[in-house]
């Protein structure tokens, strides 16, 4: 929080806190699992709806296009299959790139900053 370097007693306090934290982590190895569980839960909740919504929305879009342009069955048919593909693509990406970005590129942005990197100095 402060911009200049902390005075000595503060640095010592920081060291002590770090040591105590390390001690606690060592004594309870279960704690590390929590962030993984949180991510797993988040992911599970995410992908459940992804496929369904993709299909429903794009089929609806196809129906609307048909209404506007009078191309009766074709817009709906084409967009239904595109929607299935898009939904599967979304699910596939969500599953394969849990921490990484949703796109295609290799995970360069997603793997930075391991947990616990944040200190008061960074804020």
């Amino acid at each position: 929080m402060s911009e200049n370097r902390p005075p000595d007693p503060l640095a010592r306090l920081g060291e002590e806190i770090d040591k105590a934290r390390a001690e606690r982590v060592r004594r309870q190895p279960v704690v590390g699992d929590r962030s993984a569980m949180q991510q797993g839960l988040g992911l599970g909740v995410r992908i459940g709806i992804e496929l369904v919504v993709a299909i429903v929305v794009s089929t609806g879009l196809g129906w609307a296009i048909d209404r506007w342009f009078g191309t009766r069955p074709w817009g709906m048919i084409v967009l239904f299959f595109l929607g299935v593909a898009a939904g599967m693509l979304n699910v596939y990406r969500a599953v394969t790139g849990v921490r990484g970005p949703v796109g295609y590129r290799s995970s360069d942005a997603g793997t930075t900053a391991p947990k616990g990197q944040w200190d008061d100095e960074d804020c």
Partner: protein
Amino acid sequence: MAIEIRPLEQFTVERLIPLHIGGVDVSYTNAAFLMTIAVMLVTALIMLGTRKHALIPGRWQSLAEMSYEFVADMVESNVGHAGQQFFPFVFTLFMFILFANFLGMVPYSFAVTGQIVVTFALAAVVFIGVTIVGIVRHGFHFLRLFVPQGVPAVLLILLVPIELLSYCIRPFTLSIRLFANILAGHTMLAIFAGFAASIGLFGIFPLGINILLVALEVLVAALQAYVFVILTCLYLSDAINLH
């Protein structure tokens, strides 16, 4: 003595202060009221938490700092350092959804995030904002997001529409996920509560289930806020760290 169960009644939007401006209904509803409370509570938490600037934080300050660090950490690890300039937006979004969800859990209140209008408005803001950020940052190059690399030109005819569609579907999945979870959860609570009220002494069993469901709903409330915001982060990351 049949008790009528109307589990969806709780989602009725009522006009507290009817107001029409130029033929448009802009009444102050119970949803608007709950959102006002959510905003005020978030503001109060942050104001209280940052009032003292104590080196060793008190309870309020800890709470404020914890939420700050949680979101800052999320932005840092999902978007990268360039994403920190969007931290205020992400933080506001997270706190608002979290408080709206939790306020919905208070008996006799109103689940704002169970309204598709609210969640879709939030998702649309995210979607439009992310698109603008991408276009401002990369200009015309932003359209390369829809063109996967290393693919034969023939397949592009098929792949680009799929990419485009999967991009345009984002606001829908984002809003429907939050809305459907809150709606389903609260409806389920109301149904089980109705059972408990209508079958007399045996109502103790649905009541027990309801207690467990309330715990589940608290989890869902926090989790859905988290999911909404982490997806916002991922979308931002897409727009900022373009390939």
